[in-house]
């Protein structure tokens, strides 16, 4: 469904990916994990053709995105849904209209059918009662759930989740986890979940990739990753401060900088 082959990508001279390889197979839940700044969100931007690789190939639904025209990219996007980290709801519309937005834009369905469709999706995320609230009246977790309803309203073949668990209360978190799993099992939706919540991902993911230093540091089932003896994987899975992944951004000597008298 999604193939990333030998991808190199740099922003402003800073290399983000150097030979990245990854496959998200049809009907499976693929987890992409990695420390902050590893390029997880950038990878999603490449998969959704918001950015293009400097070198290498990104293939979605069998189409090489680099050689696909803008019109076809838009056609491909109608087959995918994406859940944004902050929800990205349209602030001038209420919850109902937000979920109905892609349906109104891409279909000529009668109003009664749109209503049923939207209410069904809102029921799935537990927010049918909030249909007439404006985005500003929702909590962060509720906004994320509305965004999920919007992402699934067109019944996409590929669903991409960008940090879906951040800031959710345990009840919403459990619900989102079950929903991802249920949509994958019942509807055969291919899912790519980008997150650094190792425990949550381990319960639902079929394949896991650990991103570090611009490459895939490890790949396998969550169990395989947990059993890995790679230093990077062990540090990430156990949350260790010491290891190959530096916690501190490169800086001059701490003591020297604290006691120097000149301007920094």
């Amino acid at each position, binding site marked *: 469904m999604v193939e990333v082959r030998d991808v190199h990508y740099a922003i402003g001279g800073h290399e983000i990916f150097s030979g990245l390889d990854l496959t998200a197979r049809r009907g499976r839940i693929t987890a992409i994990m990695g420390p902050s700044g590893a390029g997880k969100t950038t990878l999603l931007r490449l998969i959704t053709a918001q950015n293009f690789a400097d070198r290498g190939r990104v293939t979605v639904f069998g189409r090489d995105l680099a050689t696909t025209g803008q019109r076809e990219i838009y*056609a491909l*996007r109608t087959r*995918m849904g*994406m859940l944004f980290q902050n929800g*990205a709801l*349209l602030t001038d519309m209420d919850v109902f209209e937000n979920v109905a937005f*892609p349906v109104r*834009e891409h279909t000529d369905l009668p109003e009664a059918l749109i209503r049923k469709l939207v209410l069904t999706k809102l029921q799935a995320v537990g927010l049918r009662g909030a249909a007439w609230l404006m985005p500003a009246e929702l909590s962060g977790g509720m906004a994320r759930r509305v965004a999920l309803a*919007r992402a699934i309203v067109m019944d996409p073949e590929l669903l991409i989740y960008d940090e879906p668990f951040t800031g959710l209360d345990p009840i919403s978190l459990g619900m989102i986890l079950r929903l991802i799993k249920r949509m994958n099992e019942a509807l055969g939706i291919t899912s790519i979940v980008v997150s650094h919540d190792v425990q949550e991902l381990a319960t639902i993911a079929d394949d896991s990739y650990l991103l570090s230093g611009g490459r895939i540091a490890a790949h396998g089932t969550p169990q395989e990753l947990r059993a890995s003896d790679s230093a990077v994987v062990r540090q990430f899975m156990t949350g260790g401060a010491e290891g190959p992944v530096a916690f501190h951004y490169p800086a001059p000597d701490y003591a020297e900088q604290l006691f120097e008298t000149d301007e920094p």
Partner: protein
Amino acid sequence: MSNGRDGYLIEGVRRLGSVALFLLRLLAQCVPALARPQLLVQQIYNAGARSLIIIMLSGLFVGMVLGLQGYDLLQRFGSEEALGTAAALGLLRELAPVITALLFAGRAGTALTSEIGLMRATDQLTAMEIMAVDPLRYVAAPRFLGGVIAMPLLTAIFSVIGLYGAQLVGVQLMRVDRGVFWSQTQSSVALHDVSEGLVKSLVFGIACSLIAVYEGYNAPPTAEGVGLATTRTVVASSVITLLLDYVLTAAFL
């Protein structure tokens, strides 16, 4: 020094090219945007109806000042009956389109830039792209067209209210004969004068709306970025309006 000057020049040309390309992309989306009249009407309401109070108040006061100044000037030559002509021509050809454009940039232009800039900053435009909805068509084009349509309408209202203000001062306060005021106005204002104001307002509408939408669409997705883009909208719109006004006035004379 010369490097700095070259840098500014290159940056200026780059920016101009970027605005021109944006305009072409925007124009290509204007036809599909016209097929969504409810979006367009909403934007005409936002840019036009919501600017009415400020336009009407300003028009009234500008007209009243014009009445006072015009009367003071004309009575020195014993031709105060020409007040209607002076006020009408001044308003229709010059003051109404220019001041409306400046007010539009400050009221509607800033609102457009900050709205679109915040939509960018909160990923709303990206979300549209992922939902296979082109934000240029759904967000930018209706707002651009709304501004272009609203500007001549606001200018017309400014002219009418301004003329009423001039009449208020000239006729009611300074006792210029009402019949003379209106007959002079009627006989001296030609279609050419009205069309000059109309063309100016249309050009200013295109320039101000383009700048507002461009700045918002390309604003860095930060609070500071949106703030700076909003400031740039007012500054660039005002300067371009005055520059274009000179060019158009020279072309019409």
